[in-house]
Protein backbone atom coordinates (compact mmCIF):
# COMPACT_ATOMS: atom_id res chain seq x y z
CA UNK A 1 0.00 0.00 0.00
CA UNK A 2 1.15 3.57 -0.71
CA UNK A 3 -0.41 6.63 0.92
CA UNK A 4 0.55 10.24 0.38
CA UNK A 5 -1.04 13.65 0.81
CA UNK A 6 -1.03 15.98 -2.21
CA UNK A 7 -2.03 19.54 -3.02
CA UNK A 8 -3.81 19.65 -6.37
CA UNK A 9 -4.43 22.84 -8.24
CA UNK A 10 -7.01 22.72 -11.01
CA UNK A 11 -7.01 25.34 -13.81
CA UNK A 12 -10.32 27.14 -14.11
CA UNK A 13 -11.32 25.25 -17.29
CA UNK A 14 -11.12 22.00 -15.40
CA UNK A 15 -12.51 22.83 -11.98
CA UNK A 16 -16.00 21.59 -12.92
CA UNK A 17 -14.78 18.22 -14.22
CA UNK A 18 -15.15 14.93 -12.27
CA UNK A 19 -11.48 14.02 -12.43
CA UNK A 20 -11.37 12.51 -8.97
CA UNK A 21 -14.04 10.06 -10.07
CA UNK A 22 -11.69 8.99 -12.87
CA UNK A 23 -8.91 8.47 -10.35
CA UNK A 24 -11.09 5.98 -8.54
CA UNK A 25 -12.56 4.28 -11.55
CA UNK A 26 -9.60 4.08 -13.91
CA UNK A 27 -6.67 4.05 -11.52
CA UNK A 28 -8.19 2.29 -8.52
CA UNK A 29 -7.04 5.01 -6.09
CA UNK A 30 -8.76 5.64 -2.76
CA UNK A 31 -9.06 9.28 -1.79
CA UNK A 32 -9.79 11.29 1.33
CA UNK A 33 -10.61 14.98 0.90
CA UNK A 34 -8.85 17.10 3.53
CA UNK A 35 -9.63 20.48 1.99
CA UNK A 36 -11.40 21.62 -1.17
CA UNK A 37 -12.16 25.05 -2.50
CA UNK A 38 -12.97 26.91 -5.68
CA UNK A 39 -11.25 30.27 -5.71
CA UNK A 40 -12.46 33.63 -6.99
CA UNK A 41 -10.96 33.08 -10.43
CA UNK A 42 -12.71 29.69 -10.56
CA UNK A 43 -9.57 27.63 -10.27
CA UNK A 44 -9.87 24.85 -7.74
CA UNK A 45 -7.56 23.70 -4.97
CA UNK A 46 -7.80 20.40 -3.17
CA UNK A 47 -5.74 18.68 -0.52
CA UNK A 48 -6.22 14.96 -0.99
CA UNK A 49 -4.84 11.92 0.68
CA UNK A 50 -4.38 9.31 -2.04
CA UNK A 51 -4.00 5.64 -1.37
CA UNK A 52 -3.10 3.01 -3.95
CA UNK A 53 -1.78 -0.51 -4.11
CA UNK A 54 1.69 0.83 -4.96
CA UNK A 55 3.59 4.05 -5.51
CA UNK A 56 3.49 3.25 -9.22
CA UNK A 57 -0.29 3.00 -9.14
CA UNK A 58 -0.69 6.42 -7.42
CA UNK A 59 1.86 8.01 -9.76
CA UNK A 60 -0.06 6.76 -12.81
CA UNK A 61 -3.16 8.55 -11.51
CA UNK A 62 -1.17 11.71 -10.87
CA UNK A 63 0.34 11.58 -14.38
CA UNK A 64 -3.21 11.45 -15.73
CA UNK A 65 -4.09 14.59 -13.76
CA UNK A 66 -0.92 16.40 -14.81
CA UNK A 67 -1.76 15.62 -18.46
CA UNK A 68 -4.96 17.60 -17.95
CA UNK A 69 -3.09 20.64 -16.63
CA UNK A 70 -3.55 19.93 -12.93
CA UNK A 71 -0.57 21.00 -10.81
CA UNK A 72 0.43 18.35 -8.31
CA UNK A 73 2.66 18.79 -5.30
CA UNK A 74 3.25 16.74 -2.19
CA UNK A 75 1.77 18.60 0.78
CA UNK A 76 4.85 17.74 2.85
CA UNK A 77 6.88 20.04 0.59
CA UNK A 78 4.67 22.92 1.70
CA UNK A 79 5.06 22.39 5.45
CA UNK A 80 8.18 23.41 7.26
CA UNK A 81 9.44 23.48 10.81
CA UNK A 82 12.27 25.88 11.58
CA UNK A 83 14.39 23.73 13.87
CA UNK A 84 16.48 26.74 14.89
CA UNK A 85 13.41 28.48 16.28
CA UNK A 86 11.67 25.44 17.79
CA UNK A 87 12.64 24.97 21.43
CA UNK A 88 10.80 21.69 21.76
CA UNK A 89 8.20 22.72 24.31
CA UNK A 90 5.47 20.50 22.91
CA UNK A 91 2.55 22.96 22.88
CA UNK A 92 1.87 22.03 19.24
CA UNK A 93 1.40 18.36 20.08
CA UNK A 94 -1.78 19.24 21.95
CA UNK A 95 -3.46 20.75 18.88
CA UNK A 96 -2.13 18.62 16.01
CA UNK A 97 -5.14 16.46 15.06
CA UNK A 98 -3.19 13.79 13.19
CA UNK A 99 -0.11 13.22 15.33
CA UNK A 100 2.27 14.76 12.77
CA UNK A 101 3.73 16.73 15.67
CA UNK A 102 4.41 14.28 18.46
CA UNK A 103 6.58 13.60 21.48
CA UNK A 104 9.18 10.86 21.54
CA UNK A 105 9.25 9.23 24.95
CA UNK A 106 11.02 9.05 27.30
CA UNK A 107 13.37 11.73 25.91
CA UNK A 108 10.41 14.15 25.42
CA UNK A 109 11.81 15.39 22.11
CA UNK A 110 9.19 17.10 19.94
CA UNK A 111 9.27 15.58 16.45
CA UNK A 112 7.57 16.51 13.20
CA UNK A 113 6.58 14.01 10.51
CA UNK A 114 5.64 16.05 7.42
CA UNK A 115 4.24 12.93 5.73
CA UNK A 116 1.39 12.78 8.25
CA UNK A 117 0.62 16.52 8.17
CA UNK A 118 -2.71 17.45 6.57
CA UNK A 119 -1.95 21.17 6.39
CA UNK A 120 -4.64 22.27 8.87
CA UNK A 121 -2.27 25.01 10.18
CA UNK A 122 -3.50 24.87 13.79
CA UNK A 123 0.11 24.60 14.98
CA UNK A 124 1.21 27.80 13.23
CA UNK A 125 -0.27 30.28 15.69
CA UNK A 126 -0.17 27.98 18.71
CA UNK A 127 3.63 27.74 18.47
CA UNK A 128 5.00 30.38 20.85
CA UNK A 129 8.00 31.10 18.62
CA UNK A 130 6.25 30.66 15.23
CA UNK A 131 8.49 27.80 14.19
CA UNK A 132 5.87 26.18 11.94
CA UNK A 133 5.15 27.48 8.45
CA UNK A 134 2.49 26.17 6.08
CA UNK A 135 3.00 27.94 2.78
CA UNK A 136 -0.33 27.27 1.13
CA UNK A 137 -1.59 30.79 1.47
CA UNK A 138 -0.64 32.00 -2.00
CA UNK A 139 -2.45 29.26 -3.85
CA UNK A 140 -5.55 29.77 -1.79
CA UNK A 141 -6.01 33.46 -2.40
CA UNK A 142 -3.99 34.71 -5.35
CA UNK A 143 -5.52 34.38 -8.83
CA UNK A 144 -3.62 32.04 -11.11
CA UNK A 145 -2.56 34.73 -13.58
CA UNK A 146 -0.87 36.75 -10.83
CA UNK A 147 1.43 33.93 -9.73
CA UNK A 148 4.78 34.25 -11.40
Amino acid at each position, binding site marked *: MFTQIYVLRFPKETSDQPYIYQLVKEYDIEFNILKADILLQREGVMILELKGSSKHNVNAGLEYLKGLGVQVERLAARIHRDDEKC*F*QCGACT*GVCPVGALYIKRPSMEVLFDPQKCTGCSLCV*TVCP*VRAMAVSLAEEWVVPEELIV
Partner: protein
Amino acid sequence: MTKQKISKTYEEINARIKAGEAVVVTAEEMVGIVREKGAEQAAREVDVVTTGTFAPMCSSGMFFNFGQMVPTIKASRVWVNKVPAYAGLAAVDAYIGATEPCEDDPLNKIYPGEFRYGGGHVIEDLLRGKKVLLEAKAYGTDCYAGRKMKKEVCLDDLSFALLCNPRNGYQNYNCAVNLSDRAVYTYMGMLKPHCRNANYCSAGELSPLLNDPLYKTIGIGTRIFLGGGIGYVTWHGTQHNPAVPRTPGGVPRKAAGTLMVQGDLKQMSPDWLRGVSILGYGNSLAVGLGIPIPILNAEMATFTGVSDKDIYTQIVDYGHDYTNGIVRSYGEVSYAQLKSGSIIVNGKEVQTAPLSSVVKAREIACMLKEWIASGRFLLNHPAETLPDGSE
Protein backbone atom coordinates in the same frame (compact mmCIF):
# COMPACT_ATOMS: atom_id res chain seq x y z
CA MET B 1 28.52 -0.64 64.06
CA THR B 2 26.87 2.11 62.06
CA LYS B 3 28.85 4.25 59.68
CA GLN B 4 28.96 7.90 60.53
CA LYS B 5 26.36 9.88 58.64
CA ILE B 6 27.72 11.95 55.79
CA SER B 7 27.84 15.69 56.22
CA LYS B 8 29.56 18.14 53.87
CA THR B 9 29.95 21.89 53.89
CA TYR B 10 29.79 24.36 50.98
CA GLU B 11 33.49 25.02 51.54
CA GLU B 12 34.36 21.34 51.21
CA ILE B 13 32.29 20.98 48.06
CA ASN B 14 33.83 24.13 46.54
CA ALA B 15 37.32 22.83 47.36
CA ARG B 16 36.50 19.65 45.47
CA ILE B 17 35.13 21.70 42.53
CA LYS B 18 38.32 23.79 42.42
CA ALA B 19 40.44 20.64 42.52
CA GLY B 20 38.39 19.22 39.63
CA GLU B 21 37.31 16.33 41.83
CA ALA B 22 33.67 17.16 42.41
CA VAL B 23 31.12 14.55 41.37
CA VAL B 24 28.32 16.39 39.59
CA VAL B 25 25.19 14.73 38.19
CA THR B 26 21.92 16.04 36.77
CA ALA B 27 18.66 15.73 38.69
CA GLU B 28 17.54 13.10 36.16
CA GLU B 29 20.67 11.02 36.76
CA MET B 30 20.28 11.41 40.52
CA VAL B 31 16.92 9.60 40.47
CA GLY B 32 18.56 6.31 39.52
CA ILE B 33 21.59 6.82 41.78
CA VAL B 34 19.45 7.30 44.90
CA ARG B 35 17.17 4.44 43.93
CA GLU B 36 20.08 2.04 43.48
CA LYS B 37 22.45 3.08 46.24
CA GLY B 38 20.23 4.70 48.82
CA ALA B 39 20.38 8.30 49.99
CA GLU B 40 23.28 7.90 52.42
CA GLN B 41 25.58 6.34 49.85
CA ALA B 42 24.43 8.73 47.12
CA ALA B 43 25.30 11.65 49.42
CA ARG B 44 28.77 10.16 49.94
CA GLU B 45 29.38 9.84 46.21
CA VAL B 46 27.68 12.91 44.74
CA ASP B 47 28.66 16.49 45.55
CA VAL B 48 26.33 18.52 43.39
CA VAL B 49 23.06 17.89 41.55
CA THR B 50 22.20 20.24 38.69
CA THR B 51 18.64 21.18 37.75
CA GLY B 52 17.15 23.04 34.81
CA THR B 53 13.97 24.47 33.39
CA PHE B 54 13.09 26.29 30.17
CA ALA B 55 9.59 27.70 29.75
CA PRO B 56 7.65 30.93 29.35
CA MET B 57 8.01 32.86 32.63
CA CYS B 58 5.86 35.97 32.49
CA SER B 59 7.23 37.94 35.40
CA SER B 60 10.52 38.76 33.66
CA GLY B 61 12.09 41.89 32.29
CA MET B 62 15.12 44.11 32.01
CA PHE B 63 16.36 47.19 33.84
CA PHE B 64 18.45 49.32 31.53
CA ASN B 65 20.19 52.66 31.27
CA PHE B 66 20.15 54.16 27.80
CA GLY B 67 22.56 57.06 28.24
CA GLN B 68 22.15 60.82 28.04
CA MET B 69 22.03 63.28 25.17
CA VAL B 70 22.40 67.07 24.88
CA PRO B 71 20.27 68.75 26.09
CA THR B 72 19.90 66.19 28.85
CA ILE B 73 16.55 64.50 29.34
CA LYS B 74 14.55 63.06 32.21
CA ALA B 75 12.52 60.54 30.26
CA SER B 76 9.00 60.09 31.57
CA ARG B 77 7.77 57.80 28.82
CA VAL B 78 9.96 55.28 27.00
CA TRP B 79 9.41 52.86 24.13
CA VAL B 80 11.73 50.23 22.69
CA ASN B 81 10.71 49.06 19.22
CA LYS B 82 7.30 50.60 20.05
CA VAL B 83 7.01 48.44 23.17
CA PRO B 84 6.37 50.70 26.18
CA ALA B 85 8.87 50.51 29.03
CA TYR B 86 8.39 51.83 32.56
CA ALA B 87 10.26 55.10 32.96
CA GLY B 88 9.27 56.23 36.45
CA LEU B 89 12.82 55.68 37.68
CA ALA B 90 15.71 58.09 37.16
CA ALA B 91 16.46 60.26 34.11
CA VAL B 92 17.54 57.59 31.64
CA ASP B 93 16.73 54.40 33.55
CA ALA B 94 13.81 52.20 32.55
CA TYR B 95 12.37 48.71 32.97
CA ILE B 96 10.87 46.78 30.11
CA GLY B 97 8.58 43.91 31.03
CA ALA B 98 8.39 40.69 29.02
CA THR B 99 4.59 40.71 28.78
CA GLU B 100 4.27 44.26 27.43
CA PRO B 101 2.90 44.10 23.88
CA CYS B 102 3.94 46.42 21.07
CA GLU B 103 1.87 49.62 21.34
CA ASP B 104 0.13 49.20 17.99
CA ASP B 105 -0.67 45.52 18.53
CA PRO B 106 -4.32 44.71 17.77
CA LEU B 107 -4.34 42.68 21.03
CA ASN B 108 -7.47 40.55 21.23
CA LYS B 109 -9.53 42.81 18.95
CA ILE B 110 -8.98 40.14 16.33
CA TYR B 111 -9.62 37.17 18.56
CA PRO B 112 -7.55 35.22 19.40
CA GLY B 113 -4.75 37.80 19.16
CA GLU B 114 -1.36 36.71 17.86
CA PHE B 115 0.80 39.10 19.94
CA ARG B 116 3.69 38.89 17.53
CA TYR B 117 6.05 41.29 19.28
CA GLY B 118 6.48 42.32 22.90
CA GLY B 119 8.96 43.04 25.66
CA GLY B 120 10.34 39.50 25.57
CA HIS B 121 11.14 39.90 21.88
CA VAL B 122 12.95 43.19 22.58
CA ILE B 123 15.22 41.34 25.03
CA GLU B 124 15.83 38.55 22.51
CA ASP B 125 16.56 41.04 19.71
CA LEU B 126 19.10 42.85 21.90
CA LEU B 127 20.82 39.54 22.64
CA ARG B 128 20.92 38.77 18.91
CA GLY B 129 22.91 41.97 18.46
CA LYS B 130 20.08 43.72 16.61
CA LYS B 131 19.54 47.47 16.70
CA VAL B 132 16.34 48.51 18.46
CA LEU B 133 14.58 51.86 18.21
CA LEU B 134 14.59 53.72 21.49
CA GLU B 135 12.14 56.60 21.91
CA ALA B 136 11.60 58.77 24.95
CA LYS B 137 9.43 61.73 25.86
CA ALA B 138 9.84 64.14 28.72
CA TYR B 139 8.13 67.21 30.15
CA GLY B 140 11.39 69.12 30.54
CA THR B 141 13.00 70.63 33.63
CA ASP B 142 15.69 73.22 34.25
CA CYS B 143 18.26 70.50 34.76
CA TYR B 144 16.91 68.20 32.05
CA ALA B 145 15.68 70.45 29.23
CA GLY B 146 15.33 67.73 26.61
CA ARG B 147 11.77 66.80 25.61
CA LYS B 148 12.32 64.06 23.05
CA MET B 149 14.84 61.38 22.28
CA LYS B 150 14.94 58.96 19.39
CA LYS B 151 17.90 56.73 18.62
CA GLU B 152 18.84 53.27 17.51
CA VAL B 153 20.75 51.27 20.07
CA CYS B 154 22.11 47.77 20.41
CA LEU B 155 22.99 45.93 23.59
CA ASP B 156 26.59 47.20 23.49
CA ASP B 157 25.30 50.79 23.49
CA LEU B 158 23.46 50.33 26.77
CA SER B 159 25.69 51.13 29.72
CA PHE B 160 23.67 48.82 31.94
CA ALA B 161 21.31 45.95 31.14
CA LEU B 162 20.12 43.74 33.97
CA LEU B 163 17.74 40.86 33.51
CA CYS B 164 15.54 41.10 36.58
CA ASN B 165 12.73 38.60 36.90
CA PRO B 166 10.48 39.09 39.92
CA ARG B 167 8.95 35.61 39.59
CA ASN B 168 10.65 32.66 37.92
CA GLY B 169 11.11 28.99 38.53
CA TYR B 170 7.66 28.22 39.91
CA GLN B 171 7.81 25.23 42.20
CA ASN B 172 5.18 23.09 40.51
CA TYR B 173 2.26 24.41 38.45
CA ASN B 174 -1.35 23.60 37.57
CA CYS B 175 -2.38 21.11 34.93
CA ALA B 176 -4.87 23.11 32.84
CA VAL B 177 -8.10 21.80 31.31
CA ASN B 178 -11.20 23.52 29.96
CA LEU B 179 -14.57 22.20 31.11
CA SER B 180 -16.59 24.91 29.33
CA ASP B 181 -18.24 24.45 25.95
CA ARG B 182 -16.00 26.82 23.97
CA ALA B 183 -12.29 26.85 23.23
CA VAL B 184 -10.28 29.13 25.51
CA TYR B 185 -6.92 30.74 24.79
CA THR B 186 -4.93 30.99 28.01
CA TYR B 187 -1.39 31.41 29.24
CA MET B 188 -1.58 27.63 29.54
CA GLY B 189 -2.14 27.40 25.79
CA MET B 190 -5.23 26.65 23.73
CA LEU B 191 -7.64 24.48 25.66
CA LYS B 192 -10.34 22.66 23.73
CA PRO B 193 -13.90 22.61 25.06
CA HIS B 194 -15.30 19.74 27.12
CA CYS B 195 -11.89 18.79 28.50
CA ARG B 196 -10.43 17.41 25.29
CA ASN B 197 -6.82 18.34 26.12
CA ALA B 198 -4.72 19.07 29.20
CA ASN B 199 -1.62 21.29 29.27
CA TYR B 200 1.02 21.36 31.98
CA CYS B 201 4.14 23.44 32.52
CA SER B 202 6.93 22.16 34.74
CA ALA B 203 10.24 20.43 34.18
CA GLY B 204 9.15 17.92 36.86
CA GLU B 205 12.08 15.98 38.27
CA LEU B 206 14.53 18.42 36.60
CA SER B 207 12.86 21.53 38.02
CA PRO B 208 15.03 23.51 40.50
CA LEU B 209 12.67 24.03 43.42
CA LEU B 210 11.18 20.53 43.15
CA ASN B 211 14.67 19.23 43.98
CA ASP B 212 14.97 21.42 47.06
CA PRO B 213 11.35 21.39 48.14
CA LEU B 214 11.90 22.88 51.59
CA TYR B 215 14.39 25.58 50.44
CA LYS B 216 17.31 24.15 52.44
CA THR B 217 19.99 25.33 49.99
CA ILE B 218 18.40 27.71 47.48
CA GLY B 219 18.23 31.21 48.88
CA ILE B 220 19.35 34.79 48.51
CA GLY B 221 22.73 34.84 46.81
CA THR B 222 22.58 31.36 45.27
CA ARG B 223 24.60 31.45 42.06
CA ILE B 224 22.63 30.06 39.12
CA PHE B 225 22.52 29.50 35.36
CA LEU B 226 20.33 32.30 34.02
CA GLY B 227 19.67 32.84 30.34
CA GLY B 228 22.91 31.17 29.35
CA GLY B 229 24.98 33.29 31.73
CA ILE B 230 25.53 33.48 35.44
CA GLY B 231 22.84 35.00 37.65
CA TYR B 232 21.73 34.99 41.24
CA VAL B 233 18.65 34.32 43.30
CA THR B 234 18.04 37.73 44.87
CA TRP B 235 14.84 37.19 46.86
CA HIS B 236 11.87 34.90 46.99
CA GLY B 237 9.64 35.58 44.00
CA THR B 238 6.24 37.25 44.00
CA GLN B 239 3.44 34.85 45.01
CA HIS B 240 5.98 32.66 46.84
CA ASN B 241 3.70 30.47 48.91
CA PRO B 242 5.37 27.69 50.87
CA ALA B 243 2.22 26.89 52.88
CA VAL B 244 0.61 24.38 50.53
CA PRO B 245 -0.23 20.68 50.92
CA ARG B 246 2.88 18.54 50.47
CA THR B 247 3.75 14.88 49.99
CA PRO B 248 5.44 13.04 52.90
CA GLY B 249 8.71 13.82 51.04
CA GLY B 250 7.99 17.56 51.28
CA VAL B 251 7.16 18.08 47.60
CA PRO B 252 4.33 20.60 47.10
CA ARG B 253 1.21 19.15 45.48
CA LYS B 254 0.40 22.46 43.78
CA ALA B 255 2.11 25.73 42.82
CA ALA B 256 4.19 26.86 45.81
CA GLY B 257 7.58 28.57 45.99
CA THR B 258 8.97 31.04 43.45
CA LEU B 259 12.26 32.84 42.87
CA MET B 260 13.31 36.35 42.05
CA VAL B 261 16.42 36.15 39.91
CA GLN B 262 18.73 38.57 38.19
CA GLY B 263 21.90 38.70 36.19
CA ASP B 264 23.90 40.77 33.72
CA LEU B 265 22.04 40.52 30.40
CA LYS B 266 25.21 41.23 28.46
CA GLN B 267 26.65 37.80 29.17
CA MET B 268 23.41 35.96 28.35
CA SER B 269 22.41 34.30 25.09
CA PRO B 270 19.35 34.32 22.79
CA ASP B 271 19.46 30.51 22.93
CA TRP B 272 18.27 30.71 26.52
CA LEU B 273 16.04 33.80 26.51
CA ARG B 274 13.33 33.71 23.86
CA GLY B 275 10.50 36.14 23.26
CA VAL B 276 7.25 34.21 22.95
CA SER B 277 3.76 34.90 21.62
CA ILE B 278 0.96 33.06 23.36
CA LEU B 279 -2.15 32.94 21.19
CA GLY B 280 -5.05 34.93 22.63
CA TYR B 281 -3.09 35.69 25.80
CA GLY B 282 -0.06 37.86 25.11
CA ASN B 283 3.69 38.08 25.10
CA SER B 284 6.17 36.55 27.45
CA LEU B 285 9.76 35.43 27.74
CA ALA B 286 10.94 31.83 27.77
CA VAL B 287 13.70 31.75 30.38
CA GLY B 288 16.41 29.17 30.83
CA LEU B 289 17.15 28.67 34.51
CA GLY B 290 19.38 26.13 36.21
CA ILE B 291 20.29 25.80 39.87
CA PRO B 292 22.99 23.64 41.43
CA ILE B 293 22.09 21.86 44.63
CA PRO B 294 24.89 20.91 47.01
CA ILE B 295 24.49 17.41 48.42
CA LEU B 296 25.35 18.34 52.00
CA ASN B 297 23.82 15.22 53.52
CA ALA B 298 21.50 12.27 52.93
CA GLU B 299 18.45 14.51 53.22
CA MET B 300 19.56 16.55 50.18
CA ALA B 301 20.25 13.32 48.29
CA THR B 302 16.71 12.16 49.06
CA PHE B 303 15.26 15.48 47.90
CA THR B 304 17.21 15.52 44.64
CA GLY B 305 16.42 11.86 44.02
CA VAL B 306 12.76 12.75 43.53
CA SER B 307 11.25 11.34 40.34
CA ASP B 308 8.32 12.35 38.15
CA LYS B 309 6.15 9.69 39.72
CA ASP B 310 6.61 11.27 43.16
CA ILE B 311 5.65 14.77 42.02
CA TYR B 312 1.95 15.59 41.84
CA THR B 313 -0.09 18.52 40.68
CA GLN B 314 -3.74 19.53 40.52
CA ILE B 315 -6.05 19.60 37.51
CA VAL B 316 -7.56 23.08 37.25
CA ASP B 317 -10.38 24.30 35.00
CA TYR B 318 -9.44 27.36 32.93
CA GLY B 319 -12.82 27.51 31.17
CA HIS B 320 -14.68 28.83 34.20
CA ASP B 321 -12.96 28.35 37.57
CA TYR B 322 -9.65 30.13 37.05
CA THR B 323 -10.96 33.46 35.80
CA ASN B 324 -13.65 33.45 38.49
CA GLY B 325 -11.14 32.87 41.26
CA ILE B 326 -12.61 29.48 42.17
CA VAL B 327 -9.99 27.23 43.74
CA ARG B 328 -11.05 23.71 42.86
CA SER B 329 -9.16 20.61 41.75
CA TYR B 330 -10.49 18.02 39.36
CA GLY B 331 -7.96 15.50 40.51
CA GLU B 332 -4.30 14.99 41.27
CA VAL B 333 -1.89 13.63 38.68
CA SER B 334 1.82 12.85 38.75
CA TYR B 335 4.34 14.18 36.24
CA ALA B 336 4.99 10.60 35.21
CA GLN B 337 1.34 10.40 34.16
CA LEU B 338 1.41 13.83 32.51
CA LYS B 339 4.56 12.95 30.55
CA SER B 340 3.05 9.64 29.42
CA GLY B 341 0.80 11.57 27.03
CA SER B 342 -2.59 11.10 28.64
CA ILE B 343 -4.34 11.36 32.00
CA ILE B 344 -7.79 10.48 33.30
CA VAL B 345 -10.05 13.42 34.12
CA ASN B 346 -13.60 12.77 35.34
CA GLY B 347 -13.26 9.16 34.19
CA LYS B 348 -12.28 10.11 30.66
CA GLU B 349 -8.89 9.79 28.97
CA VAL B 350 -7.48 13.20 28.04
CA GLN B 351 -4.42 13.90 25.89
CA THR B 352 -1.69 15.95 27.59
CA ALA B 353 0.81 18.43 26.13
CA PRO B 354 3.75 20.13 27.84
CA LEU B 355 4.54 23.86 27.60
CA SER B 356 7.89 23.51 29.34
CA SER B 357 10.76 22.07 27.29
CA VAL B 358 12.23 18.98 28.90
CA VAL B 359 14.85 18.79 26.14
CA LYS B 360 16.11 22.30 26.95
CA ALA B 361 15.81 21.76 30.71
CA ARG B 362 18.04 18.71 30.37
CA GLU B 363 20.50 20.66 28.23
CA ILE B 364 20.71 23.37 30.93
CA ALA B 365 21.29 20.81 33.68
CA CYS B 366 24.05 19.27 31.53
CA MET B 367 25.68 22.65 30.78
CA LEU B 368 25.67 23.58 34.45
CA LYS B 369 27.09 20.16 35.30
CA GLU B 370 29.92 20.78 32.85
CA TRP B 371 30.58 24.28 34.25
CA ILE B 372 30.87 22.91 37.77
CA ALA B 373 32.79 19.76 36.90
CA SER B 374 35.37 21.86 35.02
CA GLY B 375 35.87 24.11 38.03
CA ARG B 376 34.43 27.23 36.40
CA PHE B 377 31.37 27.60 38.61
CA LEU B 378 31.41 27.55 42.40
CA LEU B 379 28.45 27.27 44.74
CA ASN B 380 27.36 30.16 46.91
CA HIS B 381 26.20 29.69 50.45
CA PRO B 382 22.89 31.60 50.57
CA ALA B 383 22.89 34.72 52.74
CA GLU B 384 19.34 33.84 53.78
CA THR B 385 17.20 30.89 52.80
CA LEU B 386 13.72 31.47 51.38
CA PRO B 387 10.66 31.68 53.62
CA ASP B 388 9.59 28.09 54.31
CA GLY B 389 6.28 28.87 55.97
CA SER B 390 7.48 28.37 59.54
CA GLU B 391 7.36 31.34 61.89
